[in-house]
């Protein structure tokens, strides 16, 4: 028996790591991986709550999150490839065409 709060703390930690990575990382691909980490943290809390409240719908939501994440990954990586093709860099500091 593991208290529900342990799962929630772990999920919150994963989400926080994703946010920190999103903010401090300078590589486009690593920033993208931080987003995946955030989604994984949310998924864990979904499953923990589903088990805790005996609601199987929580596990179905996890599938939808996974599907959206997979679609987002495919499109996002295609965008990264397009950015690399035009700017020849993966550093977000140098992708500044819209900056004044």
């Amino acid at each position: 028996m593991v208290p529900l709060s342990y799962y929630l703390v772990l999920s919150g930690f994963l989400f926080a790591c994703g946010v920190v990575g999103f903010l401090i990382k300078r590589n486009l691909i690593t920033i993208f991986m931080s987003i995946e980490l955030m989604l994984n943290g949310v998924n864990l809390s979904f499953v923990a709550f589903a088990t805790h409240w005996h609601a199987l719908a929580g596990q179905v939501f996890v599938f939808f999150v996974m599907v959206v994440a997979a679609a987002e990954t495919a499109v996002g990586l295609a965008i990264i490839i397009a950015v690399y093709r035009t700017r020849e860099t993966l550093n977000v500091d140098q992708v500044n065409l819209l900056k004044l």
Partner: protein
Amino acid sequence: MSLHLILFLVFGAVCVGGAVNLLAQRHPINSALSLIAVMAALAGEYLLLGAEFVAAVQVIVYAGAVMVLFVFVIMLLNAGEEEETRGSRVALLLGVPGVLSGSVLTAWVMVRHSGTEAVAVGALPGYPTDIAQLLFHDFLLPFEVTSVLILIAIMGAVVLASKPEAPARKVD
């Protein structure tokens, strides 16, 4: 200390270590590999929660397909070490202590005030038959909408990643 708790702590330690390693590494391929470790350990957590099907899908879709895509793009673009950049000092002075104190306080409150309810092992077995009943009956419309979403995503990825039509260049 029950075996369940020990397993939770082991998988949780792998998750935490992988997430911290993802932040610490400078090379994207190392970050990707630690993210795979996080996802595999999360599948173990799902197994502990009784969500067997979710655990299987986590390994197949996330640790398998999505991360293969990431590693493939890293190799395709030949991504090197990321460059050091100077962060803002205000963020370092205010943000780090603020985030630390806030997260420690939240975690303490959660652990302290919800310690009685425990998630039992296999309290809600996520059998594929039950999940299929939900997915193809109660959530049929969202399920069909996601298929449209995937189709659009595939077409978008192909359009974005394909080489742009080379403008008619004069051969000189």
